[in-house]
């Protein structure tokens, strides 16, 4: 895991077999419990066909369990001195484990005493369960077991629901703190299970700012102001198949968005408790942060696989063209233009299963009407929309009101008028609007353009009030891995010809 090869150490080597080995005594004890239960049940006549355990068998099984449990405890002891675990948690598991092993030996010693054996055996089972749970918590982090517990199970068990109340309501973008609300949640999701309070591999903890600044046993991990000096980013950027890559192979990886945010944070000098509004943030990062803060939680739930499967099913039924539009997100380019008039309201409504994932939608030249446009209401992610040469009018445009991400809208050769495009002032990102061959007048376009520009100015002024010294640089390029070509644009509105 480190730069130089780790020193040979037999104890450390064997210790790492502990998590494997512990399952042996547990399995043997559970098997014995099952056999004992069967023997008990066999006393009742209807279940007399069940096998009964003999003394010799019991002695042999218990001897094996005691031996394996002792070896487990010894291996665990070796691991505790090597495994980068939090000592407080380790010591409780450590002593519970030793106690469980001792209890097993004790059961072996007393198993011939008829009245004592059941008590001792059940006690040792309970002790084993508690010790095992403490060990599992070390590996997986606390709350792992109950994270996905349905509410009724928790109610039944009397465990108060923990997860839902744990997350405080995210603050809005301007007030969100750069570290606490933006960076920390990413580290918590992706890093803390191994670099946290319970387990701190490499001596590195990423659960608080102080620990983050301190770094691990190889020194600080964030090169403030210079992302190229940040070991944290370097390790994340390494090819996934290398040993030094973090998170390790098999663990959930950082998404491109998360990486973008971390890179921005490191390059901005790892700002601590500063509100986002007071920092210079490239628009791309701002957008990601806004989405993460709860811009549209439904979108975050969109998984790529199921969305693409749904898209596949849809395009099989009709010949509408559906293509993924991003390398790792679920976003889709849906093109109905080749179908022409054969594509109508019914076909548009049938896109419902993939609606939230549609980023580009080309309905140009189709027979979609005002009534059909209601289906666009669910397409929150829409950025490019072609409605040219469709039988749509002013009243249909109302359906676009909630589509806050639209940047491009083509209304060429439709029946829309000045009255209809007024609605579009509710689309904060609109920058290209095409109204050639409509009744829309240049004056109305200018008015709309002014309104949108003013809105952008106002949002910018708010940011300035929060001491945003420099204007957001629209031309700024985010050269992530050299592959992200997308930039956000705040160009003035394009006026019609």
């Amino acid at each position, binding site marked *: 895991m480190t730069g130089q090869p780790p020193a040979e150490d037999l104890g450390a080597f064997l210790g790492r077999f502990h998590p494997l080995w512990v399952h042996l005594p547990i399995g043997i004890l559970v098997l014995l419990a099952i056999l004992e239960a069967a023997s008990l049940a066999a006393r009742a006549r209807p279940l007399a066909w069940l096998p009964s355990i003999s003394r010799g068998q019991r002695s042999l099984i218990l001897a094996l369990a005691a031996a394996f449990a002792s070896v487990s405890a010894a291996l665990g002891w070796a691991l505790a001195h090597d495994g980068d675990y939090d000592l407080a948690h380790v010591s409780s598991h450590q002593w519970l484990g030793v106690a469980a092993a001792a209890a097993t030996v004790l059961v072996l010693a007393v198993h011939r005493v008829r009245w004592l054996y059941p008590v001792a055996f059940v006690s040792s089972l309970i002790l084993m369960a508690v010790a095992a749970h403490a060990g599992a918590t070390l590996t997986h982090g606390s709350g792992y077991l109950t994270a996905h517990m349905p509410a009724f199970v928790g109610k039944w068990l009397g465990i108060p629901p923990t997860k839902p109340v744990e997350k405080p309501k995210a603050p809005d973008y301007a007030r969100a703190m750069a570290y606490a609300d933006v960076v920390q949640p990413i580290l918590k999701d992706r890093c803390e299970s191994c670099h946290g309070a319970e387990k701190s591999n490499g001596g590195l903890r990423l659960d608080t700012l102080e620990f983050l600044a301190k770094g691990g046993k190889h020194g600080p991990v964030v090169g403030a102001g210079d992302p190229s000096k940040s070991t944290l980013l370097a390790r994340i950027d390494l090819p996934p198949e290398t040993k030094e890559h973090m998170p390790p192979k098999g663990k959930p990886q950082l998404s491109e968005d998360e990486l973008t945010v971390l890179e921005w944070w490191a390059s901005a000098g790892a700002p601590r408790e500063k509100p986002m509004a007071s920092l210079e943030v490239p628009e791309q990062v701002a957008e990601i942060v806004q989405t993460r803060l709860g811009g549209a939680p439904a979108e975050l739930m969109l998984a790529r696989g199921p969305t693409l499967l749904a898209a596949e099913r849809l395009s099989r039924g009709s010949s509408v063209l559906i293509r993924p539009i991003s390398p790792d997100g679920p976003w889709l380019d849906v093109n109905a233009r*080749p179908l022409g008039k054969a594509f109508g309201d019914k076909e548009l409504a049938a896109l419902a299963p993939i609606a939230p994932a549609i980023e580009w939608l080309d309905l140009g030249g189709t027979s979609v009407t005002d009534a059909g446009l209601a289906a666009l209401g669910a397409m929150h992610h829409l950025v*490019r929309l072609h409605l040219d040469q469709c039988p749509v009018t002013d009243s249909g445009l109302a359906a676009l009101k909630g589509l806050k991400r639209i940047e491009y809208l083509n209304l060429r050769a439709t029946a829309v008028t000045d009255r209809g495009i007024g609605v579009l002032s509710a689309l904060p990102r609109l920058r290209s609007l095409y109204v050639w061959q409509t009744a829309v007048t240049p004056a109305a376009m200018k008015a709309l353009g002014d309104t949108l520009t003013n809105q952008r100015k106002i949002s910018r002024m708010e940011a300035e009030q929060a001491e945003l010294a420099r204007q957001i640089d629209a031309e700024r390029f985010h050269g992530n891995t050299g592959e992200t070509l997308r930039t956000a644009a705040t160009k003035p509105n394009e006026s019609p010809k």
Partner: protein
Amino acid sequence: MNLPTDPRVFREQQLAWSRRTFLGKSAQALGALALGSLINPRLLGAQEAAPGGRWMGILPSPNFAPRAKRVIHLYMAGGPSHLETFDYKPELNRIHGQPFPSSFTNGQQLAQLQNTTLLARGSSFNFSRCGVSGQMISDLLPYTQQIADDICIIRSLHTEQINHDPAHAFMNAGSMVKGRPSMGSWLLYGLGAETENLPGFVVLMSRGPSGGEQPVSARQWSAGFLPSRFQGVQFQSKGVPVHYVGNPDGVCQSTQRQVIDEIARLNGFHEEETLDPEVQTRIAQYELAFKMQSSVPDLTDLSNEPDSIREMYGVKEIGDGSFASNCLVARRLAERGVRFIQLYHRGWDQHGNLDTDIKEVCRRTDQASAALVKDLKQRGMLEDTLVLWGGEFGRTPMGQGSGRDHHINAFSAWLAGGGIRGGLTWGSTDELGYRYIDDGQQMHVHDLHATMLAAFGINHEKLTYRFQGRDFRLTDVHGNIAHGLFA
């Protein structure tokens, strides 16, 4: 990991596997396929997903966010002089007629100027600052001057081939070697086309008045080692675009359909027997030809094009074989979902009579080129249509009698739309226009290809095809994306 993505395309590759490789890879590939089909459902059951063998492209998803959906390549064949069009060189005008400094030319490759005295030749034409951006454009191109803010002029292009045919091949396929796929074919292979009713890669040709132009060989739009269904299809620019698409007397569409279906069935037997992917191509071509029986007449039915549009392009008569007519047809092809449209205009090879001949070829191409950009823009199509105007190389700043010789160290082109930033001048040449400057904005043909693929969300290093044991790509082992071109 090699995923045998499409059985047809990769059949050759599969046949090339030895038994041992096959056994070794099968287990691995099965697992990968099962996993891959979860991520990209198109992998398994490609045939079911694509009725009629529709090609949806080899790339399951883009490598990064795409901007463009189609290319219109205005191919100015013959080697347009950058010094008369987009690269303003007052210093060259100043030393007009004087010996060309040998510090520039020593050891450099020359075409027809070998063993002659090299004299500098200035441009006879004025340049103007145009648009809000103030780009310098020659007064030979008054209409292009009007779209200065929509186009990005690249002045630092350079190539490796000094004669027309290999230089065309280099511009189209990134190599002078025969048998390499052209960029239109690569794009079709990678993305497929949005139309099934027309070829995804269409070529049109027009020419100058003199008749002495270099021919352009059909290998320039060949699919090379890619399956031949990805090759460009040349339409006639004069008269009917595709000959004989109509049915002969006495044959109706339903009869025709039956004939096509039966031929496809018989071809299917042959394919099962031989496993030759070219049989698939043949079946697909029959089907396409059938569809073109209705799509081609619709393409050339210009009754719904208003006179104002015809005037804008300067079209006298549709289908008269002119570049203007081809530009209008190109827009209509783009509207119908054709992926790659290439309009060759021959007549830029001015070894002599430069001043009179270039005036004429500009007159024939300038208005329609600009009209195409304007027309795409008013339709909202310029945002996802990448227009490239340019030739295969430039011309020498040294005179050749009354003209200029071929030149590979510098030439100009422009790009518009498809996410390209308008009003930008990219790269530059030295004060005599002899060689590009290494300032990070130099653009080799490979770099142009890489950048064009990037506009489609394709990483040029990832779009490969295995042929004769090697993974080939359009940019060979070169190519840098000019990120700065994108808005």
